[in-house]
């Protein structure tokens, strides 16, 4: 598989050095365009009024929360099964970003829920399962740092990430399985998106921007972690020599 080639840290460093500026520029451009289109150009909703604009942050953040967890679980699988040197690094670097997106999703959801549903929080299946996702992110990070031996923490956390993956399909389909307050999917449908292009375009732009942002920050964090390990290794060599 082509991804195999990037499992080599040296090759990864070369690739990420080239890709990082492009991803960063794309993230800024997409988010800026999405914000202008979403907050200024796009029409207000006939029912929700101006609060519909919260959606342009809330929905992409929710997509990212799921995608980052999937990346994290994928990295954990590759670290445990194939012992890819980068699998652990990617999973470890992705966790705080995913927790951040999940928090943004929960907070913006609460801000939207207060005027629309009349409550900051309701115990609906979608909300509850996203809250569980947030706890899984936190548990993953806590488990990783709970051991004196860092490799043991990484392996235990990788296993937890894989076990916790059962929650991802539950979140995705919670609005279909249970008759809940949270509205069902309106973009990724077999019958085509059910929202108008004037709202769909900024939404997709924000989604693309968040994805580029995630990719850029992930590359940056993995590069930093590789550098930190090199420094540690060099220090050990210096101490022995």
């Amino acid at each position, binding site marked *: 598989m082509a991804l195999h080639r990037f499992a080599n840290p040296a090759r990864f460093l070369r690739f990420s050095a080239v890709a990082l500026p492009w991803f960063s520029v794309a993230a800024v451009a997409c988010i800026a365009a999405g914000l202008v289109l979403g907050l200024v150009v796009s029409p207000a909703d006939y029912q929700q009024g101006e609060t519909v604009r919260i959606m342009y942050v809330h929905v992409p953040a929710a997509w990212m929360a799921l995608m980052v967890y999937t990346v994290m679980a994928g990295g954990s699988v590759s670290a*445990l099964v194939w012992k890819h040197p980068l699998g652990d690094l990617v999973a470890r670097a992705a966790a705080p970003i995913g927790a951040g997106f999940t928090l943004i999703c929960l907070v913006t959801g609460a801000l939207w829920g207060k005027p629309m549903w009349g409550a900051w929080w309701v115990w609906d299946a979608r909300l*509850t399962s996203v809250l*569980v996702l947030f*706890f*899984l992110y*936190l*548990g993953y990070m*806590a*488990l990783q740092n*709970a*051991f*004196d*031996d860092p490799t*043991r*923490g990484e*392996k*235990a956390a990788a*296993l*937890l990430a*894989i*076990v*916790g993956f*059962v*929650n991802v399909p539950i979140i995705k389909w919670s609005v279909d399985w249970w008759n809940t307050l949270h509205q069902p999917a309106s973009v990724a449908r077999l019958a085509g998106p059910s929202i108008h292009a004037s709202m769909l375009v900024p939404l997709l732009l924000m989604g693309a921007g968040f994805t580029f942002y995630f990719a850029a920050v992930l590359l940056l964090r993995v590069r930093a972690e590789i550098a930190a390990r090199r420094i540690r290794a060099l220090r050990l060599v210096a101490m022995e020599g």
Partner: protein
Amino acid sequence: MTAFRAVLLRDLRLALRQGGDAAVVVLFFVLAATLFPFGVGPEPNLLARIASGVIWVTALLSVMLALDRLFLADHEDGSLEALATAPAPLLAAVLAKCLAQWLLAGVPLIVAAPLLALFLQLPAEGLPALLAALTLGTPTLVLVGAVGAALVLGARRGGVLLALLVLPLAVPVLIFGVAAVDAAVAGLPTRPHLLVLGALLLAALATAPFAATAALRQAIE
């Protein structure tokens, strides 16, 4: 199979000789649940309304409380290494330990549940559903908890961490366990909820022991 029986009998015998562990868990279960009438007031209608939830949540916490001992003693005295290097599969030992844990810390909760139902004024129609739901739900909690208990072996503050990892995953059991009791009290069929609880148990039985075994192997590496 002989390995499974040997580990099961060994764990039961150890627990009986040391004594007290199972009693402490039940005591915690009863005490924690009897705090609620003091917290929300002794009004019978209110208690009857929240009884199913209170009993389920305290049962969940009691199972959690007992779980950090599941592998810890064997890890500390080295018998876990012996089990892992024995010719019999470690999976059999994990399953046996889970069953022993359920017999010691799950079944006593089910036995004590009618007492709490009485204390918390749970309507009589709800009791059979509560017992059935606990019988199907507590083994799932033990199995899911076994994965957590294996993951936190050797961690600092393992007990708190275990709760942090396992409680979010225990939410589905809680939801359907309470739903079954509430349905029975409302005169609705409990069968769908109990079937979901059974499905959760089967799914946990098919996956959790493998994950726990993998986590144990990491812990003793």
